[in-house]
């Protein structure tokens, strides 16, 4: 482990207890039953999808059955497919059940159970595309879900594909003519084709592959349990029944039939996206998470920002605290020089890798540390913008540096930078929209979930955009009033 990650760990260890208090979503274990954490990318119907707020599909149903037979309590987490294997590998989850194809590369990282289904890759095109055969893959833009067999297959044999986060996005890209064909697994392809009458599957399967559950190499006990139970389920017909039932459930789209004009169509789409299955709740809950994460992150950021700004400006003015200043500068350079998404993923997968912590805590830590770097420079600018005479006046009266700082400089600096801090809050509010990378269901992710269920991009994205815009406008207005208030007070 590098020195830096050690330092970050120490930082995390300091932050965790203080933040724990503020967390609403607990990490407590319930009852005596052992818990098994399963991860998947819940946008891969019929293997996994979110229905009525719950993650269901072939994979969760099989794993749930295995858990029941072995007296485990099942906890399912949703994350991007690209993170699923890493989650098992790093011990964040016990089993990866996400329609994972067994490959040699993946075998190096995790162990696989016996296959529970054999799947094939299929090419899907628009009906209006005309003749399309396998040879056309060379010359057309191809959409795939990143990290899937389709991705590897197209990359290896044909060309660099356009990689999307999940199947609904791949399909959306096809429908909106971003790509001319897509290569996806047969099962989700069937489901999508059923839901989208303008799309069609080519009859030739591309590659046949086995799906299996991924389990950490450190858990041979779990691997054995899965294999034994899978064999039982194959023998007694449960496996086939679960797969068949999940397919049927997935095929029955809950979209209302519509006939007629544009208005009816919009009405129907609105109902499908927000009313049916109470989908508006994804937005509502997501909005709550977004606000909670933003507010706590800003508070943490201001705390860190103040500490760093005081150290930095003390160094600037007196030349002391050389080491502390160097540490702070390092913090600023690293945090401001790297994207917040990467910081978020590092904190989730590297620093908190073996801890079962609330994802809100992870997000607050990441965004708080990120915001602290920007806040620090805002506050430092506020301190440095004050007339030198203010410090001199304080010191000439016999006040110590600390007293002058606390009673003379900081109150004025804070007042000067209040608008900039408010602005930082607004920026952060929008930045938290990448929380979905660690499967935190914030507002943006809420929209994603709706999209993955309704195969409809326009309304969910618009709704999310409008909510962000409304919140930003509300706080901008509040900030404007605050600024005017301060100006008035200064002018008095």
């Amino acid at each position, binding site marked *: 482990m590098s020195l830096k990650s050690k330092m970050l760990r120490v930082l995390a260890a300091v932050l965790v207890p203080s933040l724990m208090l503020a967390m609403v979503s607990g990490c407590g274990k319930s009852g005596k039953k052992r818990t098994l954490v399963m991860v998947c990318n819940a946008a891969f119907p019929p293997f996994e999808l979110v229905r009525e707020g719950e993650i269901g599909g072939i994979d969760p149903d099989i794993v749930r059955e295995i858990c029941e037979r072995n007296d485990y309590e099942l906890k399912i987490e949703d994350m991007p497919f690209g993170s699923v294997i890493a989650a098992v590998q790093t011990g964040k989850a016990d089993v990866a059940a996400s329609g994972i194809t067994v490959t040699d590369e993946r075998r190096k990282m995790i162990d696989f159970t016996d296959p529970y289904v054999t799947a094939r890759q299929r090419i899907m095109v628009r009906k209006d595309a005309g003749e399309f055969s396998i040879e056309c893959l060379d010359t057309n833009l191809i959409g795939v879900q990143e990290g899937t067999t389709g991705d590897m297959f197209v990359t290896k044999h044909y060309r660099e594909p356009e990689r999307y986060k999940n199947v609904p996005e791949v399909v959306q890209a096809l429908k909106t003519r971003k790509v001319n064909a897509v290569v996806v697994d047969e099962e989700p392809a069937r489901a999508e084709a059923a839901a989208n009458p303008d799309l069609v599957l080519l009859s030739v399967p591309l590659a046949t592959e086995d799906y299996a559950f991924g389990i950490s190499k450190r858990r041979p006990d779990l691997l054995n349990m899965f294999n034994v139970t899978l064999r039982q389920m194959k023998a007694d017909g449960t496996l086939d029944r679960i797969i068949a039932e999940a397919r049927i459930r997935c095929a029955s789209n809950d979209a209302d039939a519509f006939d007629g004009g544009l208005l009816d169509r919009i009405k129907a789409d609105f109902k499908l996206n927000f009313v049916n299955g109470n989908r508006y709740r994804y937005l509502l809950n997501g909005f709550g998470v977004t606000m909670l994460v933003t507010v706590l992150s800003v508070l943490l950021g201001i705390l860190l920002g103040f500490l760093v700004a005081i150290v930095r400006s003390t160094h600037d003015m007196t030349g002391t605290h050389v080491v502390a200043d160097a540490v702070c500068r390092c913090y600023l350079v690293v945090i401001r020089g790297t994207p917040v998404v990467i910081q978020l993923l590092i904190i989730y997968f590297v620093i908190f890798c073996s801890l079962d912590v609330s994802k809100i805590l992870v997000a607050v830590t990441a965004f708080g540390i990120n915001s602290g770097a920007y806040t620090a420079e805002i506050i430092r600018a506020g301190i440095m913008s004050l007339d030198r*005479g203010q410090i*001199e*006046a304080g010191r000439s*009266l*016999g*006040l110590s540096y600390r007293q002058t700082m606390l*009673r003379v400089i900081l109150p004025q600096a804070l007042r000067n930078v209040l608008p900039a801090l408010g602005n930082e809050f607004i920026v952060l509010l929008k930045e938290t929209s990448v929380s979905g990378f660690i499967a935190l269901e914030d507002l943006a992710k809420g929209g994603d979930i709706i999209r993955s269920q309704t195969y409809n991009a326009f309304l969910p994205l618009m709704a999310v955009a409008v909510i962000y815009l409304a919140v930003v406008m509300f706080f901008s207005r509040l900030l404007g009033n605050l600024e005017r208030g301060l100006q008035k007070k*200064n*002018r*008095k």
Partner: protein
Amino acid sequence: MENTDNTAPLFKIRNIVKRFGSVTAVDDVSLDIRRGEALFIVGSSGSGKSTFLRCLNFLEIPDSGTIRFDGAEVAAGDRTLDAYRSLVGMVFQHFNLFPHLTVRRNITLAPLLTGRMTPEEADDTASTLLRRVGLADKSESYPDQLSGGQKQRIAIVRALAMRPEALLFDEPTSALDPEMVGEVLGVMRELVKDGMTMAVVTHEIDFACELADRMIFMEKGRIRAQGTPDEVVRHPADSRIAEFFTRLADKRR
């Protein structure tokens, strides 16, 4: 500061040198200031008079030289520096009042934070001093609501509230509109009459001549002439000094 011999100098300043890069702002200045003396320092811009004054309470740390206050040497970086500064008040050209505090809080902040006074004492002191400078009605105002002359009178009161043994004035009227100079000089006149030890950097030659026990003319970081106003201004030692005072007199007409 155990020395209470009133005839001994309050400040014993020896060989003060202050450089800014290659420029020597204060060049080997030695000087005594007696208790109760009103010392006025004059000279053209860039002559080093303000820097010298700021060295006296270590807002500028001298590169070399010593300052003994009341018999004890004051060392930069020493913890006793805060205590020393609380005994030597400073009035700035640009007032440097604390804009986020009311006039009363400006005055009582330092006496309270240094533990010098109880809140009641600090309040009484503020009220008394404000009455003395005719600004009793401004105690709850903020600095930005005051005129320049009022601000400078408050700044003097703020320094006085610490009950200092000496006051340093760094061009106290230079940033004021002409019609406001008089009210500040009036307050300073009172202080001289009360026997306050003062070192004043100023361009107000008439005022300096009226009140100075001793006047110093500085040029290029050195003391070029010193003595009574009569000796320095009316009977200058050389033509350059005479020229300076003539130019100053011309400007005022």
